[in-house]
């Protein structure tokens, strides 16, 4: 019988490569200029100063926002004070209803919010889509549930709201940090004046629109854009009774000094230099993923990032080999591409800071590794970076870099791991990788860190309190503990 010849195709000679898969931006409308959200609507600012917000992946201007001045801050705080009288008394279940409504709208508008977050901040769309926005909605949903149960949560102490909360948030998780701040404050019956970060104001301005859509009573949430000056005006306004700040330790200390003697309540969530500790019995491939997720997630712009890798010396070589191969598969590029793993650095200033610290690492004698990685011509980019031969005394092992830079150190015994991990002025988080359950508990007892992750890293949930030891700040956000800073208990 006749036998047909095997058929061959041209494609067989080519190599596999992912075609671009950009998320569409057609459905997103960004205004040319934005005003301030005060007293329930967008109002013209007193301040004449405006500044652009740009897309860090291509340096294109997205919009212009106001740098709110003293008069604007005063108006916003007054609107919040006025709203406090009724908001704190409308009945807890009605407050809950508004929060549930906001949570639902966040979910409904998730795609739009994810795209804006990625355009304004530079983070990969897969992260804003799968982490930032769903977690933000989850936070509102979670605290909505507490609103009418405060007396059960804190029995015999008559929980009461404090008043106007002044909240200043960072640029690494703009909407999520907004949710961490606003959801518990509102659930407890407070009103807020919030200032988003200078480089990432857009999702907060979209949130203003969501407050209007939810018909939240006027003045319960006020949003003022601006830079450091505006932030200091918010926290120092005499009618603000409670201050919440997430950002650098340096600014945190300034705020704490300025609030001394004012009687204002303060919580701070500051920097970190977390140790990610891998023991010799750890599941190595999972540990590699955890290390990558720990430091390269969101370009390392994560206060709890696992920026110090502590590896037991006996597995140093196989682990590092695996890690280096894995770094080679990270896809850096257009943050809107659904396959992008590493997006753009948030700002020029941050890029310079990262570059400077990396330079110091090389100068101090650490060994630099970067995978082959083509950086886009425009925008702010930094390749995933790894340092070996790092000593505890090097700047890259002590200072928070807040970028995709990992310092690798080794240890020999569990005691030494504890000692090295805790040997830092910070104490926000830590990671432990081992197959041995008893060692996880042993380590967790000894880590001076607010969060200890076991065989995972950078995992967040609204039900779990988050916060720091030492220079990483104080106060907890998330969980039942997250309500405490916003309540008067007597």
């Amino acid at each position: 019988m006749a036998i047909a010849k095997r058929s061959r195709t041209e494609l067989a000679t080519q190599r596999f490569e992912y075609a671009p898969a950009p998320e569409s931006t057609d459905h997103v409308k960004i205004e040319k200029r934005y005003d301030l959200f005060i007293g329930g609507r967008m109002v013209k600012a007193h301040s004449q100063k405006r500044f652009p917000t740009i897309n860090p992946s291509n340096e294109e201007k997205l919009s212009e926002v106001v740098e709110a001045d003293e008069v604007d801050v005063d108006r916003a705080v007054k609107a919040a004070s006025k709203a406090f009288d009724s908001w704190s008394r409308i009945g807890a279940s009605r407050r809950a209803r508004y929060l549930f409504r906001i949570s639902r709208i966040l979910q409904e508008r998730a795609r739009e919010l994810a795209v804006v977050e990625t355009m304004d901040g530079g983070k990969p769309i897969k992260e804003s889509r799968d982490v930032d926005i769903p977690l933000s909605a989850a936070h509102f949903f979670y605290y909505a549930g507490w609103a009418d149960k405060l007396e059960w949560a804190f029995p015999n102490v008559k929980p009461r709201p404090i008043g106007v909360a002044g909240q200043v948030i960072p640029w690494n998780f703009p909407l999520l940090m907004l949710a961490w701040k606003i959801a518990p404050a509102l659930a407890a019956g407070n009103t807020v004046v919030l200032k988003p970060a200078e480089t990432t104001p857009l999702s907060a301005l979209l949130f203003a629109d969501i407050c209007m859509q939810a018909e939240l009573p006027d003045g319960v949430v006020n949003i003022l854009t601006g830079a450091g000056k505006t932030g200091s005006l918010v926290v120092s306004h005499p009618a603000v009774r409670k201050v919440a700040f997430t950002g650098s330790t340096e600014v945190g200390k300034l705020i704490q000094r300025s609030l001394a003697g004012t009687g204002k309540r303060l919580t701070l969530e500051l920097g970190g230099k977390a140790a990610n500790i891998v023991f010799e019995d750890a599941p190595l491939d999972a540990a590699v993923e955890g290390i990558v997720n720990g430091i390269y997630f969101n370009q390392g712009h994560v206060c709890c990032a696992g920026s110090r890798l502590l590896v037991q010396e006996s597995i140093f070589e196989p682990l590092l080999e695996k890690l280096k191969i894995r770094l080679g598969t990270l896809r850096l590029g257009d943050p809107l591409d659904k396959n992008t793993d590493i997006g753009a650095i948030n700002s020029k200033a941050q890029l310079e800071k990262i570059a400077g610290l990396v330079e110091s690492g090389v100068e101090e004698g650490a060994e630099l590794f970067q995978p082959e990685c083509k950086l886009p011509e425009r925008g702010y980019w930094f390749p995933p970076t790894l340092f070996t031969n790092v000593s505890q005394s090097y700047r890259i092992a002590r200072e928070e870099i807040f970028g995709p830079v990992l310092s690798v150190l080794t240890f020999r015994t569990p005691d030494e791991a504890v000692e090295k991990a805790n040997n830092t002025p910070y104490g926000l988080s830590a990671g432990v990788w081992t197959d041995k359950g008893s060692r996880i508990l042993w380590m967790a007892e000894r880590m001076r860190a607010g969060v200890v992750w076991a065989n995972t890293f950078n995992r967040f949930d609204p039900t779990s309190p988050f916060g720091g030891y030492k220079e990483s700040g104080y106060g907890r956000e998330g969980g039942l503990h997250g309500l405490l800073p916003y309540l008067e208990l007597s």
Partner: protein
Amino acid sequence: MRGVRSVDQVGAEERAASLAKRSIKKASKLWALDLAIRCMDLTTLEGMDTPGKIAALCAKGIRPKPGDPTIPSVAAICIYPARVADAREHLGSSGVRVASVATAFPSGQSFLSLKIDETQQAVAAGADEVDMVIDRGAFLSGDYQKVYDEIVAIKEACGDAHLKVILETGELGTYDSVRRASILAMAAGADFIKTSTGKVQPAATLPVSLVMMEAIRDFVRETGRPVGFKPAGGIRTSKQAIAYLVVLYETLGPEWMTPERFRLGASSLLNDVLMQIEKERSGAYQSMDYFTID
């Protein structure tokens, strides 16, 4: 064997889930679909298989889409030993290989002498490749030596034929066992390791495949000998097939994206791949009436 490094279940499943979210579009999708056909072990493993059924399957394997020479042939036809001679006759020198299951497939619960004999007869009848099953009874009772010795014996019985070792991961219970069985099979001489027979649920899954690929990666690092990977069972859609290729690409790398090192065991996947290729080329879905059912 008990010293083999452990696998973290949560970590493996998360990693697999994150890779499954890769968005493979346009040119890369066409490339992946083309590769899926080139790497396919087109399979029929039924009690009702007849010479006529085998003839039809062979024709489909050689020319998946009659009249369209841009569609490649599949890698192999995968069948029971008793049907090897039929397939050999129909495939002839087409280049499509004959793969035969063996060793008391799918349970493996028989005597070693019979398994060796079955393997030798399948190869004598013209099988280029043998898909054996491991003795899960021995594995789960901790008799790793017996499992190892049996694979060595079958490898020897194969002669020049390639040996794929089926772990039947759905019966192994944990990823730790999957990793152990993978290393055991490779150490005993497997040319390929394969997830499942397709007769047990769950069959191939993405996390199980990831764990096996990671075991291959570690084995290659230790020994320098590349071993192939074959997921089989339950892979019915192009989307699933592409997810396996993405995990392959990002775990073992481009060197594994060839039929010499990767196979997809499937009975009903081919027409869905053909339909997706048409969709990608023409922009429209065609009716199933335009694809031959063999």
